[in-house]
């Protein structure tokens, strides 16, 4: 019997946040703590000729100044990459050193060259002003499209050129053959612009070395404390892992940007031992802009071939993917295994070939940002679909229905084998689009559009139907694809003697509400109230291991690990209950918080079994005391959520301003534990995707200066830019995990960007507008209208 699972339970964690008692890293103050300011390059590419800190060191309150040379002298490594993608010719991925602080050269604006540590932040800031760094500026390459030019300045001198790796997927011959027979080919060329994730909490890290214990603690704003501990201790600082604790307490949003191991984490940890005091570093926002890993940065050309009935025959294309100046933790996976493998979409496309060139530029590193590769894949597919529909004069919804993969549940029917390696778990695509069309009242839209146009008003409708890969993922599979870590999840479920339950999960919550969702699962599983469950996360000392939260994996993978431990507890509990009831274990059923002998009213509550496990006076012979199990869950496959999103926009003809007037999403994220939280994830995701379509973009000038380096220039959606969202769901359970859950964290972002751009193009299509570069700012839209009108 379910009492809380599936219900919109208010969040357990909210109490502390709404009363100002959240504990984010920057809120932590340790005894004797010092403050660090990092001196960063103002140049995209320069040789460091000298660094003179003598004036800074004279300031009262300055504790130390360190440069890259000090770190190098201690033999510390660079920041590693967690994923290896080798070149098509078999050559090993080019993985240049990513130093904690640069010694010889800087390779992007914001690259660190020295750190000033002082008694307080103001002193550190003053002293940083006095550190003299003498640079010799060098020419830079900032745009991905220029990176491979023969005369492009090299980002890493030791490499032959700016290629990090190239990669392809699919069957080229088969795809070329399909194109040769095509009735119609739609081609698009566009730049999927670079974005800055911009979690509102800036990154922060506190290093604390305790000499007496020879022990390091790192408090950091991270999405995966264990991964940071592993990378930092094993690869960068060469510390014994059991002497390192990483704590990611409350984290103010991540969206991918806090997955990665950053130089500052290693820096404060290393330097704390040097000065034997804790050190806090917190990014100023302008620092976040140039040091948090960015997202997207794809220059793409792609074509889709159709037969005369609008059936897709093939897809082929090429992307130059920006990596920035260094390979960040998951960067190589993003344009490849999280992008190329998603190009089947939810269509029956029989032939696909795709090539990716991953390049270095003199810019901030690019890595996974909400959706990571899947938004880029969905963007190209869905822009192609709406464009092709217009070109072939087929209704865009109709074109999708024609090409959807037929339903398969993954239980009685097998999963769907794509042309690009993945096998989808379960899917039933058409109902999401039917439902979305109905909600938005599509059948009356074209009439309204016609009338609006007569009155000089431009309204448009845009579609996006999508599938994504979440719950990453089976370790053996990702290992074969180049991941240097496993991607399981762990959980301890500890039943206390009084029957209260503590859960230690390797998943990490930075807004997703695990303390609620996971407690719902545990409460219902044991038939106890949610108040009796405590969810603990984010601390390597308390949790056995964890791969953290990204790729919409917490419930599907982390939740499944919890389920495994729950099952083990029930199994052992049944033995204890059978003993106490003097019954056969096989005759017991567990329901409503008690074990009952079938067909009788003889029962024993969960709490009594718990107490017996810890006070084992009357106890089954040979059974260990205690009721506490640890489990690791390695998923059998990715999960594949899907959905259909439709937006209506109004374009102001005179100004080019776009207003999103309606946004309808129908999502299938498998079984839902807490619909309120799922809906919240969708809202946030949709807003970020709309941000990319309309407002956001991080562009570099030719010298490698970031032009949108503050909130004054980088325009994120504000409350008055967005509509209320209309959300609905269908449920197709995931067949291969115990919860049936697929994941909901990224769907909104993946779907909404093409939905909006498609809607704008639709609004202007009668003028002849067929493509728009993102973000679709008023200036760009206005120009497109003028160009189309021949002005």
């Amino acid at each position: 019997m379910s009492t809380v699972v599936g219900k919109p339970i208010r969040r357990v964690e909210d109490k502390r946040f709404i009363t100002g008692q959240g504990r984010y890293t920057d809120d932590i103050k340790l005894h004797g703590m010092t403050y660090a300011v990092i001196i960063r390059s103002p140049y995209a590419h320069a040789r460091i000729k000298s660094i003179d800190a003598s004036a800074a060191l004279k300031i009262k309150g300055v504790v130390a100044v360190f440069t890259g040379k000090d770190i190098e002298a201690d033999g510390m490594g660079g920041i590693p990459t967690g994923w290896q993608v080798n070149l098509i010719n078999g050559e090993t991925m080019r993985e240049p050193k990513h130093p904690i602080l640069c010694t010889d050269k800087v390779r992007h604006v914001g690259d660190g060259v020295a750190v000033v540590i002082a008694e307080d932040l103001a002193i550190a800031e003053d002293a940083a002003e006095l550190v003299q760094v003498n640079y010799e500026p060098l020419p830079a390459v900032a745009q991905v499209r220029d990176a491979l030019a023969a005369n492009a300045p090299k980002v890493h001198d030791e490499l032959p050129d700016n290629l990090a790796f190239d990669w392809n997927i699919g069957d080229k011959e088969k795809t070329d053959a399909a194109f040769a027979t095509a009735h119609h080919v739609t081609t698009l060329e566009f730049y999927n612009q670079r974005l800055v994730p911009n979690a509102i909490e800036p990154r922060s890290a506190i290093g604390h070395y305790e000499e007496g214990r020879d022990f390091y603690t790192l408090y950091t704003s991270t999405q995966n404390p264990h991964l940071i501990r592993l990378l930092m201790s094993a690869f960068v600082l060469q510390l014994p892992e059991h002497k390192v604790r990483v704590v990611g307490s409350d984290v103010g949003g991540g969206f991918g940007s806090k997955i990665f191991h950053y130089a500052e984490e290693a820096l404060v940890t290393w330097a704390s031992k040097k000065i034997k005091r804790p050190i806090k570093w917190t990014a100023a926002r302008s620092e976040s802009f140039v040091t948090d890993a960015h997202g997207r940065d794809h220059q793409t050309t792609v074509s889709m071939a159709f037969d005369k009935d609008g059936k897709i025959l093939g897809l082929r294309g090429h992307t130059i993917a920006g990596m920035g100046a260094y390979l960040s933790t998951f960067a190589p996976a993003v344009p490849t295994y999280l992008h190329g493998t998603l190009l089947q979409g939810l269509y029956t496309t029989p032939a696909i070939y795709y090539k990716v060139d991953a390049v270095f530029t003199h810019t901030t590193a690019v890595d996974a940002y909400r959706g990571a590769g899947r938004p880029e894949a969905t963007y190209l597919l869905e822009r192609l679909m709406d464009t092709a529909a217009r070109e072939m004069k087929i209704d865009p919804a109709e074109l999708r229905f024609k090409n959807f993969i037929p339903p398969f549940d993954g239980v009685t029917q097998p999963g769907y084998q794509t042309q690009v390696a993945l096998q989808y778990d379960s899917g039933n695509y058409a109902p999401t689009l039917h439902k979305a069309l109905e909600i938005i009242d599509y059948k009356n839209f074209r009439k309204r559009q016609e009338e609006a146009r007569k009155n000089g008003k431009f309204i448009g409708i845009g579609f996006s139907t999508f599938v994504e890969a979440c719950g990453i993922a089976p370790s053996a599979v990702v290992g074969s694809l180049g991941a240097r870590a496993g991607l399981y999840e762990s959980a301890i479920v500890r039943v206390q003697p009084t029957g209260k339950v503590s859960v230690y999960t390797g998943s990490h919550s930075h807004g997703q509400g695990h303390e609620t969702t996971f407690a719902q699962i545990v409460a219902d599983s044991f038939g106890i109230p949610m108040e009796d469950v405590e969810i603990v996360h984010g601390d390597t000392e308390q949790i056995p291991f964890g791969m953290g939260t990204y790729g919409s994996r917490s419930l599907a993978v982390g939740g499944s690990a919890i389920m495994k431990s729950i099952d083990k507890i029930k199994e052992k509990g049944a033995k204890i209950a059978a003993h106490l009831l003097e019954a056969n274990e096989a005759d017991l059923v567990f329901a409503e918080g008690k074990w009952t002998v079938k067909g009788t009213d003889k029962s024993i509550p969960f709490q009594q079994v718990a107490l017996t496990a810890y006070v084992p006076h009357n106890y089954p012979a040979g059974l260990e005391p205690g009721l506490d199990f640890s489990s690791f869950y390695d998923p059998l496959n990715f999960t594949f959520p899907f959905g259909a999103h439709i937006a209506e926009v109004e374009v102001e003809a005179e100004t080019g301003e776009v207003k999103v007037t309606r946004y309808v999403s129908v999502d299938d994220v498998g079984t839902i534990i807490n619909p309120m939280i799922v809906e919240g994830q969708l809202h946030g995701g949709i807003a970020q995707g709309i941000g990319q379509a309309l407002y956001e973009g991080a562009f570099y000038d030719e010298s490698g200066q970031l032009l949108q380096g503050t909130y004054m220039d980088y325009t994120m959606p504000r409350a008055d830019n967005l509509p209320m969202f209309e959300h609905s769901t269908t449920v197709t359970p995931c067949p291969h995990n115990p919860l049936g859950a697929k994941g909901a964290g990224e769907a909104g972002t993946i779907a909404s960007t093409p939905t909006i751009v498609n809607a704008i193009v639709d609004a202007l299509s009668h003028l002849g507008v067929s493509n728009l570069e993102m973000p679709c700012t008023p200036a760009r839209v206005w120009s497109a209208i003028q160009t189309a009108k021949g002005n």
Partner: protein
Amino acid sequence: MNVPITVTINGTAYTRDVEPRQLLVHFLRETLNLTGTHIGCDTSSCGACTIMLNGQTVKSCTLLAAQADGAEIMTVEGLATDGKLHPIQEGFWQEHGLQCGFCTPGMMMAGVQILKNNPNPTEEEIRHGLEGNFCRCTGYHNIVKSIQYAAKKSAAM
């Protein structure tokens, strides 16, 4: 040369010597350990630091602590009275108006101001009133609903 100031925060008077250049937000967070007020930017754009000063919302990163001498301040820590949540807090909890919680203290302050200006605002007025505050998690939908909830709740009181 430090300057002496006295500020009443959430009903308690604090007298401290502050550096003339110290920002009010740093005074709250670093000097008084009132870390419920957050810092999200360095351009006065995000609103995470929003507090009430003499009954009006201000971004506490745009004021010097010295400028607050003699002022009455309310921060997120002072919203609930006698353990009873303020309607705006109830609204955010009830309507899932927060995810990571980082923007929330500032958002709630903005909400209090919106309702102070107009106890029964339209959706448009609420969105307009939130223009100074970024939330990267919620897409604002549930924040709007949270403030609507608080409006109803306050009206019923």
